[in-house]
């Protein structure tokens, strides 16, 4: 993962909050993560093509509820289909906006999945690099958690682990 990829995610996240949520967002220093953090709500999108990996937009229950409700312009409750839909669409816009900025790389994103479970962790294949960017808004804190590598690099990886969800 390169700095330009990180910047792409920052720009995409800011664009979503500026245009559709109309709330400022600030970013903490990106951190290299050995493992992924625990979240109560995750929007997960896969990346494929010249780059492979996944993007998690991870929240606490409180921040997810406030941000999803602001995005949808109506109060949403965790555990409802509309809540999951809003979280998934947020993840879709952030991942989609970022991958459009990966110049020279053809990348596709999958349909989003949403996980709602207290303090869950979504693991990544072993050997893949993970960057976590915590974001702050007036509605709470959330994370953009990206694991990705070039598809050539992945093909050469000798230790391929399986990703999965683990309850706390």
């Amino acid at each position, binding site marked *: 993962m390169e700095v330009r990829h990180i910047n792409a995610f920052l720009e995409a996240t800011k664009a979503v909050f500026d245009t559709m949520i109309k709330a400022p967002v600030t970013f903490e220093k990106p951190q290299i993560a050995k493992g992924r953090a625990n979240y109560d709500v995750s929007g997960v999108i896969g990346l494929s093509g010249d780059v492979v990996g996944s993007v998690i937009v991870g929240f606490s229950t409180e921040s997810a509820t406030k941000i999803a409700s602001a995005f949808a312009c109506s109060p949403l409750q965790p555990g409802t289909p509309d809540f999951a*839909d809003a979280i998934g*669409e947020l993840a*879709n*816009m952030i991942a*989609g906006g970022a991958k459009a900025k990966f110049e020279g790389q*053809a990348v596709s994103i999958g349909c989003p999945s949403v996980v709602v479970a207290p303090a869950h962790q979504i693991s990544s294949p072993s050997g893949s690099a993970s960057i976590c960017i915590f974001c702050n808004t007036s509605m709470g804190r959330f994370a953009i958690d990206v694991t990705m590598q070039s598809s050539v690099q992945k093909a050469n990886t000798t230790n391929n682990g399986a990703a999965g969800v683990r309850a706390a």
Partner: protein
Amino acid sequence: MRVLVVDDSKTMRNIVKGVLTGMGAAAIEEAGDGQDAMSRVDAFNPDLILLDWNMPVMDGISFVRAYRGRKKTTPIIMVTTEAEKTRVLEAIQAGVNNYAVKPFTPESLSKIIEATLAKAAPKAA
């Protein structure tokens, strides 16, 4: 103005419907994917179609190709996160009339809709 809104995200359909309602749309129909849209479009007879790209069952670009293949000329605006030039070109070549990239402000989407309809309006003799 009769508008068919096609997106697998109910959140996005509601956001787009809000913009259309603000513009005074007379009737708005929703579809959750391209196949659903295809089953509704003839009966609803829209003046405009707002269409997402990435959807299950039948994606947006497949809908455009199938719809245009039936010689239908209803204006179509692709409303999508797919912002790469290659994607925009692919959509235009398939037959979309305009393109709106998510995320968008209500104002920007309104302008794209107005511009699309103005261009598609029959010219005075």
